[in-house]
């Protein structure tokens, strides 16, 4: 890793130079929530945001998009991707993208996701946890890769970690904006990270978690929560690692149709429905449990399917808390 320093007074120039790469998106405040939106000046950005409602997955795997277009009986593909800069991603969201990469870049790669991913610059930013965050428990509170540049807040600027060749190029081309990192900066960086580590309020112990959840398949706790759950699917929509989709063909006129995909949710009754009306997850309990199992699956090469961002808790209308459910299920094992 190469480390450089961006002094506060150069931030605006740095921001402008990034804008030359492509359309810039960053967290902005909309009412009481944050969301990634197109921005044109640093003043629009909420640098100290906690989490956006929709995670950055929306830029790569869109809520709704055409995958093929039918014209006069022939499919045409449109793998268009505009260069983008995603500015201000938190570490958990960078990990979320890495989990999506596992799925969408795995052969055969999804061409839409892939081309957008390739044309996007990822600029990470440090953060302080709030009451919903539990990324530290999952090891996703710090990103070692998956970004081009990562900015860590210092009292008088930013400590910048360079995570890719593209990141190097940007630093190279804007050499005059950066300074060498001093001992004082390192001390500040260290202090910030230590303070941050102590700020986590929520914890999800990992020891034997996957096995204990599996063993507690028949736990009454699943039912307790499935009974409160509204099956609205919000938790799926806002999760940076949920990526189920449904496909549908739609006619535009007599000659043109599109094949569209859109976010799907495993809370929907027809998610596991097959021909003849057989449903592999017929009850809300089955579907509730399925989501928790899917999120808690541990892939030896990619970790859990949850990055601890806390979105599902913050945006659950039934106030169901992810960590609490898992802890109670585990606790219900006699």
């Amino acid at each position, binding site marked *: 890793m190469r480390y450089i320093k961006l002094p506060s007074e150069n931030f605006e120039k740095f921001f402008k130079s990034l804008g030359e790469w492509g359309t810039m998106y960053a967290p902005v405040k909309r009412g009481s929530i944050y969301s990634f939106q197109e921005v044109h000046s640093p003043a629009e950005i909420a640098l100290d945001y906690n989490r956006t409602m929709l995670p950055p997955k929306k830029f790569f795997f869109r809520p709704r998009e055409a995958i093929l277009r039918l014209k006069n009986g022939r499919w045409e593909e449109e793998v268009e991707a505009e260069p983008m800069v995603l500015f201000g991603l938190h570490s958990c969201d960078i990990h979320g993208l890495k989990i999506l990469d596992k*799925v969408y870049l795995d052969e055969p*790669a999804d061409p839409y996701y892939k081309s957008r991913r390739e044309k996007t610059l990822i600029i990470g930013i440090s953060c302080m946890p709030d009451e919903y965050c539990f990324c530290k428990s999952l090891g996703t509170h710090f990103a070692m890769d998956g970004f081009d540049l990562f900015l860590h807040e210092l009292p008088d600027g930013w400590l910048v970690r360079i995570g890719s060749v593209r990141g190097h190029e940007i630093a190279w081309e804007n050499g005059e904006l950066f300074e060498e990192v001093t001992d004082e900066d390192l001390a500040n960086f260290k202090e910030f990270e230590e303070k941050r580590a102590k700020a986590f309020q929520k914890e999800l112990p990992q020891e034997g978690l996957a096995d204990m959840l599996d063993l507690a398949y028949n736990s009454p706790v699943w039912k307790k929560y499935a009974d409160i759950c509204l099956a609205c699917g919000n938790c799926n929509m806002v999760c940076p690692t949920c990526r189920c989709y449904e496909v549908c063909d739609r006619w535009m006129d007599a000659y043109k149709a599109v094949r569209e995909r859109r976010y799907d949710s495993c809370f929907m009754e027809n998610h596991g429905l097959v021909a003849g009306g057989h449903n*592999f997850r017929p009850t809300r309990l089955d579907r509730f449990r399925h989501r928790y199992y899917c999120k808690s699956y541990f892939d030896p090469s990619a970790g859990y399917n949850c990055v601890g961002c806390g979105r599902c808790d913050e945006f659950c209308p039934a106030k169901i808390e992810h960590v609490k459910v898992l802890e109670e299920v585990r606790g219900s094992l006699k």
Partner: protein
Amino acid sequence: MSENPYMTYNARILEVKDLTSREKLFTLRFLDPEVGANFNFKPGQFVIVDIRGFGEFPISICSSPTRKGYLQLCIRKVGRMTKFIHKMKEGDIIGIRGPYGNGFPMEEMEGSNLILVAGGLGMAPLRSVLWYAIDTGKYENVWLLYGTKAYEDILFRDEIIHLLKHGEAMNCSVKLAYEVESPSCIYLERGFSDRVCKGVVTDLFRGEEFDVNNTYALICGPPVMYKFVIRELLDRKLSPGRIYMTLERRMRCGIGKCGHCIVGTSTSIKYVCKDGPVFTYWDALSTRGLI
């Protein structure tokens, strides 16, 4: 060729044949001979059928890779899209992508006995195995145990009756169980009293012994069938690793993206479309919800 895995290849319907009142057999050929030549598949794999502007659905390949130049799909009319394809005629064009899934391990099983256990529409993927085994002659004996509702529901009836009569010469013995009595069934039962009976597919195991060290079982049928058939096989001491079954789940993409076919729990997530649809009984023991 397109790099886009969602793009389908044009295939012409060469023939449409009624198998029963609900199932039709579609014989297809790719329009582009190069695509056809590159389309290699294994018994047990499936394709995604694309009816442009109406949608896509997964269907097992029911012809054998030993029979080149065409592809056969046996499609039951159950809903919107299958109804649509049932209206299509010879000469019509549809799209195909695939083949997908892992298929049965035909090479690993060479030299062994195969017991194919089919229930209803489960006959479709197993027909590919059946003809592959007969055509290659690389397997010791092939038994087909086929459970069907009624005489009218027997898929590939001509082939099944042909094998009842002449299968011996091809090291293939067929046994048939039917649930609803009819004059045709009784006539069949009279002709092949040792091989045709009223009952369900597990009844066909009665009196059967086989060399467990040299036999594989391949199962496909409705979800309820698996547990009962597996019990019969385990009772005869067949190893779980020699029991293969092919499963159905809702599928959209067929390539591990859309998430619909995911099964399992925190210790064992599997995609039926790419880790399966063929699984062994070991997989079922370690993956909750597989069967």
